């Protein structure tokens, strides 16, 4: 398997000169291509900070983050923007679609930033809207879509640029149960069928239950990683046999 995210010894400290608060403390994290991972933990445990650092939105005070072998902590602010455009898809808690654009235009927007041709955009939009099941909502403005539909469009937008992985910060927090399951189904299907890597922060049990790997953060430290547990189980099983 290919390593997509490789974070070494990363820390983020707030108020370093007064009373230092470690939002993220010496975290090591490796994500392989095609993983479907939930980052869980109580509020203030550092989930969003860690996600922001992996997404190149924030910089760690210590450590390095490699995305497909590129150390993004060494990139300039401008290079990071281009890097995010080409490599990372974002899904936010509050959808954050551009209100003046239609659903289709919101998805096309990313590809326009990538200077994709009209034909490429049209084809990609068609595919993505089929995958999220909103072919009939192409020309609707976000204000005319439900929360669940808006978040599905946000997922399509995140995937439009064909990123290395998708970061989703509390993607189901603003959704009702039906919409949340619907969204999770779509994300899981995309992960299974197209091998798209997802890393999402959440404290929603519905999401945690669907994740194949769960990383638990407490006070900025990883206290449990189910990938390590299953590796240990596999190793123990191998020893028994």
């Amino acid at each position: 398997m290919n390593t997509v995210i490789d974070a070494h010894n990363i820390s983020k400290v707030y108020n370093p000169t007064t009373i230092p608060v470690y939002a993220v403390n010496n975290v090591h994290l490796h994500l392989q291509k095609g993983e479907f991972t939930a980052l869980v933990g109580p509020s203030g445990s550092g989930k969003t900070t860690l996600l922001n650092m992996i997404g190149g939105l924030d910089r760690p005070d210590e450590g390095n983050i490699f995305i497909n072998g590129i150390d993004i902590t060494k990139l300039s602010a401008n290079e990071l923007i281009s890097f995010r455009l080409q490599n990372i898809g974002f899904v936010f808690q509050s959808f954050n679609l551009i209100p003046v654009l239609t659903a289709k235009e919101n998805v096309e927007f990313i590809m326009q930033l990538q200077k994709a041709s009209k034909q490429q955009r049209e084809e990609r939009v068609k595919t993505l809207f089929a995958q999220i099941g909103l072919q009939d909502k192409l020309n609707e403005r976000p204000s005319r879509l439900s929360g669940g539909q808006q978040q599905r469009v946000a997922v399509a937008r995140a995937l439009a640029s064909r990123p290395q992985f998708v970061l989703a910060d509390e993607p189901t927090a603003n959704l009702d149960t039906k919409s949340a399951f619907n969204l999770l189904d779509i994300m899981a299907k995309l992960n299974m069928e197209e091998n798209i890597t997802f890393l999402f922060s959440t404290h929603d049990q519905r999401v945690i239950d669907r994740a194949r790997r769960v990383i638990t953060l407490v006070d900025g430290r990883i206290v449990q990683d189910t990938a390590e547990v299953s590796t240990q189980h596999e190793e123990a099983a191998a020893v028994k046999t």
Partner: protein
Amino acid sequence: MWLLQLAWKNMWRNRYRTLITMAAIFFAVILSVIASSLKEGIFNNLVKNVVSFYTGYAQVHKRGYWNEQILDNSFETAPAAEQKILQQKNVAGITPRLESFALVSSGDVTKGSLVAGIDVEKENAITGLKDKLVQGIYLKSTDTAILLAQGLAERLKLKVADTAVLIGQGYHGATAAGKYVVKGIVKFGSPELNDKALFMPLAAAQDFYSAYGMVTSYVLSFNNTAAAEASVIAMRSSMDSSYEVMSWGDMIPDIKQHITADSNNMKYVQGILYMLICFGIFGTLLMMMVERKFEMGMLVAIGMKKIKLMVLLTVESILTVFAGCIIGLLVSIPVIYYLNRHPFGIGGETAKAYERFGFEAIFPTSTDAAIFINQGLAVVAMGLLISLYPVYKVIRLNPVAAMKK
């Protein structure tokens, strides 16, 4: 192109905010155009009133005449020079004068007066002398009669058809003396002119002063009075060096200084107006930035380069500012033309006081195209300058901080 489309859509996302910004710019353009146009119009009218008393917009003399206004500094009428002046682009008319001083006497009263020998028809065309008649009739070029200013006539106790005796010094020291019938009495707004002016036909004046074929000045009128100074400068470079060409500003410097001082005061008023405009535009931009902060953070987070975001916001500002400005100009043009044709007027005692001094009691606007262009550009420049604020905010934008709720 898609950026332009997005900018246009963004402009109308909050219709009221955009309309408020456009309205601020619209009223700013109208107010600043009206203020400037009124200022120019009032000054132009003031100059028109003053120069029409006597001096005209410009004069041509023999070099040195203005500093030493004596008959010996007169020059022979020069048809070639006259023709050359008339060929100048902006010159509308020209009239010769022979001006000097003489003592005017009636009974046992004698008074010094300014004697002006004039081409009766051309003079009337330029200074409207005939309109200033309050008694009697206007001169003919063959007359040996005079027109007296009202104040002078009262001082000498002369009426129409009375005879005045003139004594003075003629050309090259000749004695000048003669008796002239008062054909009419004229009234001037300028008290100074009203107390001492005396007019006679040019030929009669040349005969009186023994200055045959001589004049002391050519008085000029212009088609475009706003370009008088530029025309004078052009004439100076084309005329023979034996002549001096003077604008009304050179001849009546106190009026020019008054206009300059008032213009400077108006600049403060306009400065305050511009400040109000700036605050109006800035307020709405500030609202917009607060409202869209989260979205801007999100756009940068998903990969929109800051430079593109800056271009987007600048295009939005340009569209809003230009739309407000163009509508403002389109509305201000008919308003200014209407106020030019139907100027603000004052009534009562103030109006009478104005008229006593020969001024029209009206405040017309100027329709000079430069006013519309300059004020439009000033407001656009202010709008664009203020729209640098969102650009500055984008430069400093931190997507994580911007997306914090």
